[in-house]
C-alpha cells in the first residue's frame, strides 16, 4: 500500500476509535438535570445512586458522579448490577446553586423509587429551580 493510502487508513481508524471512546456507556437507568430557573442544563451537579439494603435498613452507595455539560450523567449503572429493589438518587442541589453564586431552598434532593422490572429502561430527570423541582418516570 502506498504511504498516502496508509496515512488515510490510519486517519480513518483513529476517527473510529474516537467515536467509540465518545459513546456513553450504556445504563438502564439515566437522569437529566435541568435548571429551569435559567433555562439551561444543570452541569457539574454532583449526584449519587444508592440501593436500599433491606436487611440492614440502610443504603449502599453504588455510584457517584457529576452531570456533564448537557446535564446528564452517563453510565450510572450496568445492566448486570441493575436489580429489582428500592433506589435513591441524590442530587447536591445546594452545592450546585452555591457554585452559581445563589442560594437554594433545597440543600439536596433525594428521589426514592422502586424498581420491580429491571429489564426496562428508567429515566429519572430532575427539573430544578431555586424554589421548586419536579421529577417523573421516563424511559
Amino acid at each position, binding site marked *: 500500500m502506498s504511504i498516502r493510502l496508509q496515512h488515510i487508513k490510519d486517519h480513518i481508524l483513529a476517527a473510529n476509535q474516537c467515536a467509540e471512546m465518545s459513546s456513553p456507556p450504556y445504563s438502564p437507568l439515566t437522569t437529566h438535570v435541568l435548571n429551569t430557573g435559567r433555562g439551561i442544563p444543570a452541569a457539574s451537579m454532583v449526584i449519587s445512586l444508592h440501593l436500599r439494603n433491606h436487611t440492614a435498613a440502610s443504603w449502599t452507595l453504588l455510584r457517584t458522579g457529576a452531570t456533564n455539560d448537557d446535564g446528564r450523567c452517563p453510565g450510572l449503572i450496568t445492566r448486570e448490577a441493575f436489580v429489582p429493589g428500592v433506589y435513591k438518587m441524590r442530587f447536591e442541589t445546594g452545592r450546585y446553586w452555591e457554585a452559581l453564586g445563589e442560594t437554594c*431552598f*433545597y*440543600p439536596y*434532593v433525594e428521589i426514592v423509587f*422502586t424498581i420491580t422490572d429491571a429489564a426496562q429502561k428508567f429515566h429519572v430527570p430532575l427539573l430544578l429551580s431555586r*424554589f*421548586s423541582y*419536579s421529577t417523573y*418516570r421516563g424511559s
Partner: protein
Amino acid sequence: MTTSKTGSLLTTHVLNTADGVPGARMALSLHRLDPQMALWNLVSKGTTDEDGQCSDLISRDEFTAGMYKLRFETRQYWESLCQSSFYPYIEIVFTITDLDQTFHLPLLLSRYSYSTYKGI
C-alpha cells in the same frame, strides 16, 4: 396556586394530579435535622384532610432556623386506592433561614411523577 392557611407557619397541600383530586388522608411527618448529631428528629406527624391540606405542623416556639424534612407516605396512599406507585415515599428537604415568613410546601403527585415548590 395553593396558599397556606392563615396563621400557620408551615403548611402543605397534596394534590393527586392523576385523578384531579386532593390527596386526602395521606400520612406525613415533619422532621428537623440535629446538625451536631447528624440525626433527624421527629417534630410532628399528620394526615392530610379531605382537601389534601395539613397545617399546624409546627408551633411558633418550635419553629427555629435549620434544615427540615417533610416526608409523605405515598406508597400507603396509592395502596389505599388499590394502585402501585413508583415512589414508596417522598421526602422534601428544605432550609429555613427567615422565621418571619410562612412556608407552604405543596406536593403535586401522580403515580409516576411529582413536583413541589415554595409558596407562602
